[in-house]
C-alpha cells in the first residue's frame, strides 16, 4: 500500500456558537482512526458521535443529499470554501485529501447577509428572497404552449443549463472577499435571460433581483473571481458579466 496511511489523527478547531446573538468561539478536538475513505461530513459525524457518547453536545452543521446536489452543506475548511478540492461540495470532500497529524479549522460561511444560526449552520434565506423577486418565469399551470413550439438552440440551452446548475449553497458569498452574492444572482438572471421564455420579464427581473440583493446586505463585485474558483458547480463569472449587461441595459434603455 506504500507510505500513505489508511487512518488519520487529526486536530480540529471547530466553531461553536449557541445562537445568532451570542458570541462564538473555536473548540479544539482530537480525533484518531479517521479512515481516509470517509467523507468530510462523515468525519464530523464521528466527532459528533464521540461528543454525544461523552454527554456533550454535537456540532450542528447543514447537510442533506451528501452527494453534491442539494446545496445544503457548507463550511469553510482551513480557509477554503468547501475545502481544498476543485468543483466539489463539502459532502463530496474525502479525508484522503488530508494528511496524518493535520490541523483542520472548520468555520461557518461568514457574511452579514448569512447570519450564523448555530455552530456551523447559517441562515441562507436571503437567497430565497432574491429568487422571489423574479427568479422565475410567470406562467400559471395549464397555460403552457406545446413544448416544442419554441425552438431553442443547443448553444442557448447549454449555456442556460450551465447557469442553472447553481445549487444555491452560498459558497460564492462565503468565498468572495466582499461577501457578494453576484454569482448566485447572476446564475439565475443569466439562465432565464438566455431562453425565449424569459424574454417578457427580462428587464423587470434583473432590476428587481439586483435591488433585493443589495438590500439584503451583500457586498458588491470587484471581479476577484474567487466565487468562480470556489463554486462547486464551476459556474463562470461570465454570468456576472451578463448580469451587469442585463442590469445596465435594462436601467439605461429599459422601458420600465
Amino acid at each position, binding site marked *: 500500500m506504500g507510505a500513505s496511511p489508511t487512518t488519520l489523527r487529526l486536530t480540529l*478547531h471547530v466553531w461553536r456558537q449557541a445562537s445568532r446573538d451570542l458570541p462564538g468561539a*473555536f473548540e479544539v478536538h482530537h480525533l484518531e482512526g479517521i479512515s481516509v475513505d470517509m467523507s468530510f461530513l462523515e468525519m464530523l459525524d464521528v466527532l459528533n458521535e464521540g461528543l454525544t457518547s461523552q454527554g456533550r453536545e454535537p456540532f450542528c452543521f447543514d447537510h442533506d443529499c451528501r452527494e453534491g446536489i442539494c446545496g445544503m452543506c457548507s463550511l*469553510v475548511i*482551513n*480557509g*477554503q*470554501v468547501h475545502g481544498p478540492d476543485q468543483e466539489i461540495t463539502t459532502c463530496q470532500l474525502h479525508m484522503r485529501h488530508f494528511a496524518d497529524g493535520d490541523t483542520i*479549522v472548520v*468555520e461557518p460561511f*461568514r*457574511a*452579514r*447577509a448569512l447570519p450564523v444560526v448555530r455552530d456551523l449552520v447559517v441562515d441562507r434565506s436571503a437567497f430565497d428572497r432574491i429568487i422571489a423577486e423574479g427568479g422565475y418565469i410567470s406562467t400559471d399551470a395549464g397555460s403552457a404552449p406545446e413544448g416544442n413550439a419554441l425552438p431553442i438552440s443547443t448553444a442557448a440551452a447549454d449555456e442556460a443549463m450551465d447557469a442553472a446548475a447553481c445549487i444555491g449553497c452560498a459558497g460564492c458569498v462565503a*468565498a468572495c*472577499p*466582499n*461577501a*457578494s452574492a*453576484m454569482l448566485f444572482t447572476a446564475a439565475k438572471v443569466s439562465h432565464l435571460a438566455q431562453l425565449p421564455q424569459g424574454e417578457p420579464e427580462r428587464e423587470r427581473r434583473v*432590476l428587481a433581483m*439586483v*435591488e433585493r*440583493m*443589495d438590500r439584503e*446586505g*451583500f*457586498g*458588491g*463585485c*470587484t*471581479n*476577484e*473571481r*474567487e466565487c*468562480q*474558483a*470556489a463554486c462547486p458547480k464551476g459556474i*463562470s*463569472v*461570465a454570468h*456576472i*458579466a*451578463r*448580469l*451587469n*449587461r*442585463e*442590469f*445596465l*441595459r435594462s*436601467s*439605461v434603455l429599459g422601458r420600465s
Partner: protein
Amino acid sequence: MGRCHVLIWLRRTFGSSIGSKALMACTGLVLIGFLFAHLGGNLLLFADADGAAFDAYATALEHSPLLPLAEAGLALLFCAHIVLGVRVQRANREARETAYRVRRTHGARTPGSRTMVATGLVILLFLVAHLYDFRLCRPEGDSLALIVRERLASPSGLVLYGAGVLALGLHLTHALRSALHTLGLHHPRYEALVDRASFLLGFVLGLAFLSFPLVFFLGGAA
C-alpha cells in the same frame, strides 16, 4: 414625471452595487485615457537635453483656454472615482462582519486585485504630492522641465514618484479587466486575452512612468 422621476432613476441605477461599479469603471477608463495623454506629454522630457520641447508643450497647455475645463473634468473624474471607490469598499467591508480565522484563496485573486484600495490610496497620496510639486508650489516663470528633473533627481523624488507609479501600475493590472467585466463586456473567447492585456497595461504604463524618476535620478547622480 420630470425631475423627481429622473432622480429616482439615478438613485436606483447608480446607487445600486452594479451601477456604482459601472460609474467607477467608466471614470477609471477615462482616467486611463488621461494617463496615456499625460505619458505622451511627459515623454517630451526625453526629447532634448534642455527641456525646450517639454516647456513649449507645457506653456501651450497653460495658455489653452480649454485647460480649466480639462482640469475641472479631471478633478471631477478623480473625485468621482475616489469617492465611489471608498464607498464601495466600505460597503464591501461591512458585508462581512466577522472575519475568518483562516483565509486561503482558491487561486483566483491577483496581486493587483487584492490591493486595489491600497494602491488607490497610495495613488491618491501621490497625486496630492504630485500636484503640490508641479502645480501648486511651482516658482513662477521657471522652466517646468528643469523643476521636474531636479525633483526627480532627488532621493525623496525617486521614492515618492517610484512608489506612486508602481502603485499605479499594480492598480492598472486589475483595472482594465475589471472595468470591462463590470460593464458587461466579457466573452469566454477573449477572456484570457483581456486578462493579459490588463496585466500588460499596468506593466507598461507603470514602467513607462517609472522611467522618469529612474532616468533623472541615475542621470542626476552621474
